[in-house]
């Protein structure tokens, strides 16, 4: 499954990447599984996506939870809690 993944704000800066195109192995088919897979990259990924870190996910520009399913071609975003207004 191919995904476009976007990173924003503090997370973009800490991970050093704004956007990447991923080809996921079979079985990584929810937002939560994607985050686990990214965390397994280790280093800043393990640190920034660790259980004590607050982050949010969106799938196709809607806020998502760990159970939100992923489909080929989806746009997924990872970002810190929002602070607009």
């Amino acid at each position, binding site marked *: 499954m191919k995904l476009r993944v976007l990173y*924003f*704000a503090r997370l973009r800066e800490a991970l050093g990447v704004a956007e990447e195109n991923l080809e996921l192995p079979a079985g990584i088919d929810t937002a939560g599984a994607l985050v686990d897979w990214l965390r397994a990259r280790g280093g800043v990924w393990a640190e920034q996506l660790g259980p004590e870190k607050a982050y949010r996910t969106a799938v196709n520009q*809607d806020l998502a939870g760990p159970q939100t399913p992923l489909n080929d071609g989806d746009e997924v*975003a990872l*970002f810190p809690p929002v*602070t*607009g*207004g």
Partner: protein
Amino acid sequence: MKIAVQTEPFDLAAEVAALYRANPKVGAVASFLGITRDENDGHAIQGMHLEHYPGMTERALKRIAEEAMTRWPLIDLTVIHRVGALKPTDPIVLVAVAAAHRGDAFAACQFIMDYLKTQAPFWKKEATAEGDRWVDARASDDAAAARWNVK
């Protein structure tokens, strides 16, 4: 219903007038202006950069606005959020809600702000004398949004 995300300033008087001038059923316009302060959590703020997620911001704001239109008998509303570089006393966000009666206008305006604060993908980075820092989300904003019991 007008939703906009823009770098340019907006014109409060023109935006509010657009909500009631053409519609004599409007008896009440409640509005909120969020403004860049020169301090936050004890830090002096020289300026701010507002990052957003293009596409999702408009989508999230539209969703919040439509939810407000469903919950209260509103006549019209406008949400404008600025992004990019802002300095103290610069307006950041305008939410203006027109209704026949004030209770609906006030409630919807507060609802939209509370949800925008927790659901719309904007992030503030403040410039301070000690360097730039990302603003942390506030627990009080989550609590404010929770009282409306969405989803």
